[in-house]
């Protein structure tokens, strides 16, 4: 089904619960953003970490070396913990959709809700298999255990795909008709399987591997730098680093796919990536700098034609500018463009580090010797996370003022209730305590020696 004809739609949409007059809209948006920022790293661990854990288990089954078993068991505890916390933060989000955006849910819940139904089943399955996997070590057959692990990998993929399908729908609303401003003729499957889904899921899925790969490798890289270079640390370093290093170059290609799709389907968002005021050919890209209201970009480094190349793979390609829509329909430009640039800059850096690792492996079949490599690995964990969050800021802020692109404004989706500052403050406290608790718990887990995972010796060189 083609996207809704938006030429008149935005003026005529009748929301289900009228028009709110919320004085704390920005705070509401920031609260929602805060919830995503705390939740999404956990999602990364839910979608990418299981594959690494199962891979380590696979090495154990293949070689019988207790180092791999200890690593896999240790990682599976971390995986369980982070999954449990992810369920908790995901629960907050489910409530938040209704608490903060009741008009969005009331107007369109029946269009995209199917995505959450499917996601729910998927994560329920993942919870079950994670429980079996973590608590079933040594208690069920190795084959059953491995299969449970593989089930965790698969359900992580399906669950996140369904949620991202909803986000894709928000960027390209489809699967329904507007008759006299009311939502009718709903086709829920069409709504979910929209044109944004493929690249969004791919981009996020790979991002998960970058974040988790570098964060986990960073833990062991730090041990490496401290002089602990036993086989346990080496395995803990190499396995996630392999995943991350191979993903990094691919993510650049997918990023290009993403940019071109956005250029086609959400041209104003793409214009905000740069701050391009007027529709033009040979559109330049300014690295850095601040976008000013009149359309100038101060202090940036201008690279001619680059935006046209990014959007269209053609230096002469036409790129739509911000003034193709009225001022109240444009997103906050500086937030969008600086997040976008940070993400691309870091992503490129990750790929460069990956190249160093892979080339050293290819040509010398060993790990890099310089300490700077390991310091870079340690830094890339948090950096990958920053890139991830910047990417989400780019796409979400870039979609503003719309919550449903060109159809429903965020200011019309929001609750009319008064207590937003309390909710915001309360949630901040909740998230801060949660973070502190998780960090504390992870450190306690790390304090236990690896030998304790296998009840004894890890063998020579560990």
């Amino acid at each position: 089904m083609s996207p809704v004809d938006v030429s008149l739609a935005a003026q005529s949409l009748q929301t289900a619960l009228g028009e709110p007059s919320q004085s704390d809209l920005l705070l509401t948006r920031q609260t929602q953003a805060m919830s995503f920022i705390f939740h999404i790293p956990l999602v990364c661990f839910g979608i990418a970490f299981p594959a690494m854990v199962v891979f380590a288990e696979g090495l154990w089954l293949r070689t019988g070396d207790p180092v791999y078993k200890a690593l896999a068991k240790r990682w599976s505890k971390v995986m369980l913990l982070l999954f449990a916390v992810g369920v908790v933060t995901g629960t907050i989000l489910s409530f938040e959709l209704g608490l903060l955006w009741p008009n969005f849910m009331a107007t369109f819940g029946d269009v995209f809700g199917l995505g959450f139904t499917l996601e729910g089943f998927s994560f329920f399955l993942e919870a079950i298999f994670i429980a079996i996997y973590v608590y079933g070590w040594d208690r069920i057959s190795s084959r059953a255990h491995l299969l449970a692990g593989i089930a965790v990998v698969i359900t992580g993929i399906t669950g996140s795909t369904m949620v991202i399908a909803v986000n894709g729908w928000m960027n390209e609303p489809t699967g329904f008709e507007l008759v006299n401003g009311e939502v009718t003729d709903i086709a829920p499957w069409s709504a979910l399987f929209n044109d944004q889904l493929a690249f969004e899921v791919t981009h996020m899925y790979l991002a998960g591997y970058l974040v988790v790969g570098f964060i986990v490798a960073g833990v062991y890289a730090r041990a490496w730098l401290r002089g602990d270079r036993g086989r346990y640390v080496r395995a803990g370093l190499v396995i996630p680093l392999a995943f991350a290093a191979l993903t990094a170059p691919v993510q650049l290609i997918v990023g290009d796919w993403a940019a071109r799709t956005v250029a086609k389907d959400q041209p104003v968002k793409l214009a905000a990536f740069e701050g391009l005021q007027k529709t033009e050919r040979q559109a330049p890209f300014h690295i850095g700098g601040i976008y000013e209201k009149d359309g100038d970009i101060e202090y940036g480094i201008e690279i001619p034609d680059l935006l046209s190349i990014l959007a269209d793979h053609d230096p002469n390609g036409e790129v739509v500018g911000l003034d193709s829509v009225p001022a109240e329909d444009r997103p906050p430009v500086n937030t969008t463009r600086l997040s976008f640039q940070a993400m691309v800059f870091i992503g490129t850096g990750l790929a460069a580090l990956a190249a160093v690792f892979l080339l050293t492996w290819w040509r010398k079949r060993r790990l890099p010797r310089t300490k700077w490599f390991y310091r870079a690995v340690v830094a890339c964990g948090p950096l990958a996370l920053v890139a991830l969050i910047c990417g989400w800021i780019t796409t979400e802020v870039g979609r503003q003022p719309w919550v449903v692109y060109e159809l429903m404004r965020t200011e019309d989706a929001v609750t009319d209730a008064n207590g937003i500052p309390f909710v915001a403050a309360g949630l901040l406290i909740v998230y801060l305590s949660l973070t502190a608790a998780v960090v504390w718990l992870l450190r306690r887990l790390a304090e236990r020696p690896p030998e304790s995972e296998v009840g004894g010796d890890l063998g020579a060189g560990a």
Partner: protein
Amino acid sequence: MLPDLAIALVVAGMAAYAVLAGADFGAGFWDLTAGGAERGGPVRGMIQRSMAPVWEANHVWLIFVLVVLWTCFPVAFGSLMSTLYVPMFIAVSGIIFRGTAFALRGEAATIAEARLLGAMFALSSVLVPFCLGASVGAVAAGNVPVGNASGDPISSWLNPLGITVGVIFVLTGAYLSAVYMAADAQRGDLADLRRAFRARALGAGIAAGAVAAAGLLVLHSEARALYDDLTTGTGLACIAVSAAAGIATLALVWRERYEAARYSAAAAVAAVIVGWALAQAPYLLPGELTIDEAAAPDATLVATLVSVVVGTLVLIPSLYWLYSLTLQGRLDKAYEPLDQRFRPLRAADPEDRGS
């Protein structure tokens, strides 16, 4: 027909949540009342042991209920979440604090740490069911109008009916949890704990029954229409089933037939929820919105129902696998009274199996 099927999903989800996660919350209640660190250690250890492998899965029922509501009855969902944002926000905060405290407490190294976390766990375990119950009470009382935060944010739920239903939710969870843990203690051959939870199950069962009966009186004065529907026809049948199952549970617990008691306790709770739904029909928001009016178009309802059926078919074998491994004791963490975990970890400590 389709709207009724969709609402049946919501009711089924609520019943499942009450029977499974309600017991998890109830465990927190017992944790709160277990006594000091020494005396309460064994009880708390038992709680930790029987909850760990399955607790993540149980709370997904709540999300299921929310999701089916917002997909199939979006206007009702938006209305009730915006009016009832206060109890809903307290509930969700409690759920988070609870989960965190529980996960952390297993790692506490000092008694002070464990006490603080324990208190957080237990307090939130009581607040969450209370707020959810009060929200149900608010809906039942007809205090949630259609609209964006149109009802009163405080008095809609903090009134006699809301408070009574909230207390019922808390006590019901405590009662279920005590029965389940008595059964677990029996399976684990822990006679002292079995006796401890037996006493609690009997006490909580009687208390829950008494408050439920009082609740009927409150309902009579606050929501007469609902009272009438609950005390006639199918509503009455469900109340009768619940009462009978409740009495049967007390008898089974008395005679230490715990496995059977698990099921009769669950049936008693589920029957009340079904009875309430039947009595409140055809209204979803009493006085404001019927189920048919609130329902999404058929395409959405069909898609949801189909997904749920297919999802359940996939879910049942895996859930069966998990529960059979749990109930066979194959996934049990080794039993350890909680106060033995209070010493700091030492490198020489043997790892307890599976933790």
